[in-house]
């Protein structure tokens, strides 16, 4: 397909292979990533459907009221309204992320297992695509494409939700004072969420690696192995030894980073407190930023140890796919 008629080719000399390869590598990677979304359609359908559901909900939320302590939704100040908007922004983001994380998990467990189950691995392997590139494309989907896509989708969803609220206010469904918009604040929150997203993806990298490893190893019931081990092992420990180290470890690897980010406090608690303390008078982002320690989080040894473990597991998955011969 790449018929670049350079003087070199017309003269009957083949182009240097490396020149062809560089453009080819990018094209190959894009094709491989597209392929993943063809096979695993839930990866984009599920977040989109959830976003659509959230928007539809706001369409019908004509009489929404809330009362937190002495803050009433009917009598919000402009700052308080902005704080509410920021909270909605974060909640939309977290909701979509939770949905995406669930489907990405199933995707990871399936991606190197399904191709052996339906023997399509013979087709994929008949193409000039290395195992390294194949596994890389799956890691890229799980750790970059879907998270960034969900981040963008969450931002767009929040804009639409805000618009719907503006229309509600214009029609008199909600008090005009309850609706606020500040582009700078919105952008700051989006940026904060993005940093948090990067942190979360990096922290969860060992889980990505573990799921890929299970996917490439499992002879059957890959999901059982992936989800069963982290649940049954702690249970077994509890019954046999009466301890709960494994469970503590599993929970730590799932969400320990947020404790580190919150200076070893509970992030949700701090976020709630931040909103509470300010009586919504200050955008919670400002209250929150003072409590967070991104430096400590990104420099946490456990984050980097996790990344090394993830790299090792992803590399192992690549090597195993190379010579796996049981189809």
């Amino acid at each position, binding site marked *: *397909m*790449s018929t670049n008629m350079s003087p070199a080719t017309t003269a009957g000399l083949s182009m240097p292979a490396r020149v*062809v390869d560089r453009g*080819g590598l990018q*094209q*190959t990677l*894009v*094709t*491989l990533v*597209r*392929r993943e979304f*063809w*096979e695993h359609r839930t990866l984009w359908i599920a977040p989109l459907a959830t976003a659509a559901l959230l928007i539809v909900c706001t369409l019908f939320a004509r009489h929404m009221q809330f009362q937190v302590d002495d803050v009433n939704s009917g009598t919000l100040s402009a700052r308080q309204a902005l704080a509410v908007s920021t909270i909605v922004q974060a909640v939309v983001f977290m909701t979509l992320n939770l949905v995406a994380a669930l489907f990405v998990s199933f995707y990871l467990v399936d991606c190197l297992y*399904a*191709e052996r189950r*339906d*023997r*399509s*691995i*013979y*087709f994929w*392997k*008949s*193409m*000039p*695509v*290395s195992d390294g590139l194949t596994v890389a494309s799956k890691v890229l989907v799980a750790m970059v494409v879907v998270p960034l896509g969900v981040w963008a989708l969450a931002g767009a969803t929040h804009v639409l939700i805000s618009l719907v609220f503006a229309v509600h206010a214009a029609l008199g469904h909600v008090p005009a004072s309850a609706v606020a918009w500040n582009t700078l604040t919105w952008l700051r929150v989006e940026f904060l969420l993005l940093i948090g997203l990067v942190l979360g993806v990096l922290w969860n990298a060992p889980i990505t690696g573990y799921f890929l490893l299970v996917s490439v190893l499992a002879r059957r019931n890959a999901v059982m192995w992936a989800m069963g081990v982290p649940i049954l092992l702690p249970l077994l420990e509890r019954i046999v030894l009466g301890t709960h180290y494994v469970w503590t470890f599993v929970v730590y690897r799932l969400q320990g980073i947020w404790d580190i980010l919150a200076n070893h406090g509970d992030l949700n608690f701090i976020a709630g407190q931040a909103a509470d303390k300010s009586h919504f008078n200050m955008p919670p982002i400002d209250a929150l930023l003072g409590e967070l320690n991104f430096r400590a989080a990104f420099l946490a040894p456990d984050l980097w140890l996790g990344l090394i473990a993830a790299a090792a597991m992803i590399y192992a998955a690549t090597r195993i796919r*190379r*010579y796996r*011969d049981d189809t």
Partner: protein
Amino acid sequence: MAQSVHHRVKKMTAVIEARGLTKAYGAQRALDGVSFTVQPGRIVGLIGPNGAGKTTALKAILGLTSFSGELRVMGLDPRLQRDALMREVCFMADVAVLPRWLKVNQALDYVAGVHPRFDRSVAESFLRKTDIRMSSRVGQLSKGMVTQLHLALILAIDARLLVLDEPTLGLDLLYRRKFYDTLLNDYFDKQRTIVLTTHQVEEVENLFTDVIFINRGHVALDSAVEALGERYQQLTVSAERCAPARALKPFYEHEVFGRVAMFFEGRTKAELAPLGELRTPSIADLFVAKMQRVTP
């Protein structure tokens, strides 16, 4: 100049060179020191009973399995240079390895995206001659149509070596015929090489230029088809005239309707012709004869 080019082409190295290929699954040896050579521009039939080691040999050639021994495919080591090798080699393992969720146009997009030697228009023009619709999913196609789709993809890839492992298994006769006709007419030329395994030897024996029989991990026969007539003879004699023929030591014989078909290796026409009806055995008959001898 022309002379030297001609000389170079003649000296071109073999497409596949295997020496002492060995692969064991546990205690069982799927390949036990297998050696063979495949020259360019040939259509080689790799023939053997189930579990003989054919598929293992193909997997080794394609770098899909580990093995010991020496193996060069297109001058490359399939163990270490698999990615480079797959630009030159195309393969179709069995039928229906295309995933059910894949749409026909996605299949074309995919191969176009990853294979530098894929010519989409070739695949599209082949598909136009079939009943396959671009928007169909593989899961909606019949087995024959899936094979046609896979064949369309392969025809559009300019590869030097095509490896086919039972490509028509489970297809009806019409699809099988069409498959091999297309392969021979639209794909094969003297620059390309095809290695093919199949159970249905009778159907494709006219296709082969070379045959390699594999049994129990060993090469039982490796010959150009045109040389078979020189090496092997099938003599049919009536039952009562068996003794003089038997004295020439046939390696296999079987009785049909009171007559005995005997298979000889390395006997001359002059020795055998007076004893009965002499002909060159078909590949299928030779296969049965060879396998019976190895497996008493």
